[in-house]
């Protein structure tokens, strides 16, 4: 691969200096003159009808400026998810801003805006609500059964949707199988745990136009959903791009209750209104959907799949939100497409319960599926005595094959085999011992898992936005300003996009700066989600930079009396390829373009050509039809204490094929952070609710246990199998999600290798291990 001057280098993040000195750009810091603070009153019951609300005492409290109840909100049912049009079929519209029926404990029923947050909180407690309690259901399999409480008229038996896909002939496939494996796997509810709480400030002008600052993963998504829920044209809503947000991981991929509530309170009062979630409110606002998976897999003697069948039951909680799309991604990219098998069927159910609503979370249905599929492959290998790498190599797709979902796409770069082989070599896979071979009470084991194919974009989901756009403008000092709607969640989107722009323009990294953007000033953009930004937004910024570069070369060509195609740009200078001494700085070209027609020079007046005048600006707006899939394989060593049930992850080797790596330090950071979230999913995290009252029992970081630095292994080694993706910016694909899809099954398989017992339900706690060992 060719060497580049900015791409592929360990550059410092442009936002790091600000963040180590205080970090002012977070939405949580937005303050406006006259700003009010609002608090929501939430239902204590998981299912109830509101008979009466009395707000009189709250309204009398000094400092209270407005109160909002279900009677004050538009009667418009909406869905809050950002990445599809509001009327897309998969987006079930079952939410009101405030409803007179509550369906989970903690659903907002009223809100108060006051001069101080403490006053708003006190006033919310003064609101009297009379409820008629309704029976509740928390288990999705009970919810679809006879006699279960019904949440909505539009969903008989609480079923939001039950899609099914099949290829080939399942019956014949099972008849041809030499061995059949049937296992059930279950994942739990986990939270994204972004560190910055959800927060927003909404201001309105005298004509009701809204301006919104929010900790969101998509300014255009928020504009579209907010306008719809309020019954406004989108042009009445402006959403400002935050310079950065304190993490998202999919948890800020939908409009919350806070934005429409602040909007209505702002319109009522004419003042800016702010809501910041407490951590408890964050915990009951979004979560990874729990899925129960029934797998039946037929395998031939030679180790190839003969038939695969799976049924998945997804608990979407009180509203559909992401539940319908998570289920589809889970079924297709988690189960049906990753491995070759001619005869397959998957059936899914998204089910309403009185649990909290689900949300987006890095991996979006695939971590659940990977836990089941990759665990079961390990069980198959154990029983039939296959090496887990050898078995996978018999069943994976290969480079230059057609994409299994859409044959019009080719897997142009697809290096899963190399991920497996290089990873195995560096990890020392060959030293793997049989299960439970260790002596003593602390037993070590190793395991692996893969994510063979990932959606990374919209392939298979034609109603999902995949757009990106950029405006790139050169300044007279030779620097470039980039305006894009793309949000940097913290994973380094701004860094990678700056590198791509700098490389394309031929300027140093420091010469590119991300600047202000809002929904009125920049091209439409899909959210920062689905491992798409490096690829889709990367291509957009490259095109914008390319168009500036073309103009720059034309102008320099005129000034240097050389053909534009005889010029090149390097280190901020335009020069003639064959005689590098003949050239001028980018700054001089821009100065010439932005100077008046007549310029004063020492010899007097000099006229230039009017064709050479104007700001050097490039604009792009693109919507690729798909993103190429990354692939990954991960190797883990654990130590299990058979006396206490404690699992310690000792070391990790994680290999990815992501095309060309734009920023190695950023890519490693994705792998390391993804592993932490995966380790939490595998061993620790569980957003537990009381199964009678529906109350959240883990609504703070003292009770919701996510990994600290002490639980993490001392080393996570990242390997990148680089290739040049022909459609990617400088050959890049994307990365984020596989980093979290793979760890849980890799850890589960390593635990099996250590102690010889299989845990099929996450998280794998000490209690479950001791019970499986017969010690409890």
């Amino acid at each position, binding site marked *: 691969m060719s060497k580049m001057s900015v791409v592929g280098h*360990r550059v*410092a*993040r442009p*936002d*790091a*200096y*600000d*963040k*180590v*000195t*205080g*970090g*002012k750009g*977070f939405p*949580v*810091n937005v303050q406006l003159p006259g700003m009010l603070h609002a608090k929501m009153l939430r239902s204590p019951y998981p299912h109830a009808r509101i008979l009466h609300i009395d707000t009189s005492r709250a309204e009398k409290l000094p400092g209270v400026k407005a109160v909002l109840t279900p009677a004050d909100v538009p009667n418009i049912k909406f869905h809050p998810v950002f990445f599809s049009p509001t009327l897309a079929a998969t987006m079930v519209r079952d939410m009101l801003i405030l409803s007179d029926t509550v369906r989970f404990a903690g659903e907002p029923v009223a809100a108060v805006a006051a001069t101080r947050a403490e006053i708003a909180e006190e006033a919310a407690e003064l609101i009297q609500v009379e409820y008629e309690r309704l029976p509740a259901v928390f288990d999705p399999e009970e919810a679809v059964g006879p006699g279960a409480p019904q949440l909505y008229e539009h969903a008989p038996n609480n079923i939001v949707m039950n899609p099914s896909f099949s290829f080939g002939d399942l019956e014949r496939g099972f008849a041809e199988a030499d061995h059949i494996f049937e296992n059930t796997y279950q994942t739990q509810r986990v939270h*994204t*745990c*972004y*560190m*910055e*709480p959800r927060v927003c400030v909404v201001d309105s002008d005298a004509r009701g136009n809204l301006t919104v600052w929010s900790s969101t993963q998509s300014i255009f998504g928020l504009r579209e959903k907010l306008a719809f829920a309020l019954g406004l044209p989108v042009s009445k809503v402006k959403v400002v791009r935050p310079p*950065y*947000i*304190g*993490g998202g*991981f999919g948890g800020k991929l939908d409009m919350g209750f806070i934005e429409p509530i602040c909007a209505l309170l702002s319109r009522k009062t004419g003042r800016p209104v702010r809501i*910041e979630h*407490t*951590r408890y409110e964050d915990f009951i606002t979004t979560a990874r959907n729990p899925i129960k998976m029934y797998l039946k897999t037929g395998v031939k003697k030679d180790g190839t799949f003969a038939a695969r069948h799976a049924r998945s039951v997804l608990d979407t909680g009180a509203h559909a939100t992401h539940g319908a799309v998570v289920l589809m991604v889970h079924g297709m990219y988690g189960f049906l497409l990753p491995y070759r098998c001619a005869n397959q069927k998957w059936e899914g159910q998204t089910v309403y319960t009185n649990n909290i609503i689900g949300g987006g979370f890095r991996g979006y249905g695939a971590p659940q599926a990977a836990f089941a599929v990759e665990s079961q492959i390990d069980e198959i290998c154990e029983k039939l005595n296959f090496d887990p790498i050898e078995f996978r190599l018999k069943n994976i797709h290969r480079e230059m094959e057609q994409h299994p979902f859409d044959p019009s796409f080719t897997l142009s770069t697809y290096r899963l085999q190399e991920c497996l082989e290089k990873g195995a070599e560096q990890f020392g896979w060959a030293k793997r011992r049989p299960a439970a071979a260790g002596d003593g009470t602390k037993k070590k084991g190793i395991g692996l898992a893969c994510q063979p194919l990932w959606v990374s974009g919209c392939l298979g989901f034609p109603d999902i936005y995949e757009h990106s756009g950029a405006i790139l403008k050169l300044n007279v000092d030779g620097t470039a300003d980039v305006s894009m709607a793309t949000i940097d*969640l*913290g*994973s*380094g989107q701004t860094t990678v996009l700056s590198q791509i722009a700098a490389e394309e323009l031929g300027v140093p990294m420091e010469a590119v700066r991300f600047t202000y953007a809002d929904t009125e000033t920049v091209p439409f953009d899909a959210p920062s989600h689905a491992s798409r930004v490096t690829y889709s937004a990367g291509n957009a910024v490259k095109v914008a930079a390319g168009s500036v570069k073309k103009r720059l070369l034309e102008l320099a060509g005129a000034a240097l009396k050389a053909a534009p195609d005889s010029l090149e740009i390097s280190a901020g200078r335009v020069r003639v390829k064959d005689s590098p001494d003949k050239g001028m700085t980018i700054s001089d070209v821009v100065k010439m373009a932005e100077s008046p027609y007549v310029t004063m020079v020492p010899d007097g007046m000099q006229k230039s050509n009017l064709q050479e005048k104007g700001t050097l600006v490039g604009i792009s707006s693109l919507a690729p039809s798909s993103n190429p899939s990354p692939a990954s394989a991960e190797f883990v060593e654990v130590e299990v204490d058979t006396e206490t049930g404690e699992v310690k992850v000792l070391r990790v080797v994680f290999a990815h094929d992501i095309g060309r790596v734009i920023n190695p*330090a*950023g890519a*490693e*950071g994705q*792998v*390391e*952070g*993804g*592993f*932490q*979230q995966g380790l939490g999913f595998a061993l620790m995290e569980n957003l537990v609710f009381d199964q009678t009252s529906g109350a959240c029992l883990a609504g*703070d*970081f*003292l009770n919701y246990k*996510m990994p*600290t*630095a*002490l639980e*993490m292994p*001392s*080393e*996570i080694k990242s390997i990148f199998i680089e290739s040049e993706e022909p459609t990617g910016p400088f050959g890049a694909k994307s990365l984020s999600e596989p980093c979290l899809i793979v760890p849980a099954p890799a850890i589960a398989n390593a635990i099996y290798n250590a102690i010889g017992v299989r845990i099929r339900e996450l998280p794998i706690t000490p209690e479950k291990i001791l019970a499986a060992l017969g010690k409890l």
Partner: protein
Amino acid sequence: MKAMISLEINGEVHEVAVAPHATLLQVLREDLALLGAKKGCDTGGCGCCTVMMDGEAVYSCMVFAMTAPGKKITTIEGLQQNGKLDPLQEAFIETGAVQCGYCTCGMILAAKSHLSSHPSPSDQEIRQAIAGNLCRCTGYQKIVDAIRLVSVGR
């Protein structure tokens, strides 16, 4: 009922009227516009609000402002000397220890406090020192790298 107290923050004395229940975090952010300390949970669970009091790392959401007079408080805004970043701040940039950045200021101050009394910690000691500070982006590896980089003799 508010009372006037004086707080010594980053070497400067601030007179501020505080309510009895106001936390140091609230006073820093809302009264003094020192925004480096972040509210991540307000229940002493995440460490985003970490500041130093007499050199000790504390969760400022767990300290009543009324108890802080007489202590030397250091926030991230006080770490730069003569316009130069603290070596820990430099190291966080250099190693790629910053992602979303919401935990970063608290993490740096937790590390700063530990290094002032233990200048040459082992990796395990570094991990122990920041175990009260949650980060959801980085997996901590590059944060440990950054702190190791400024440890004496390592």
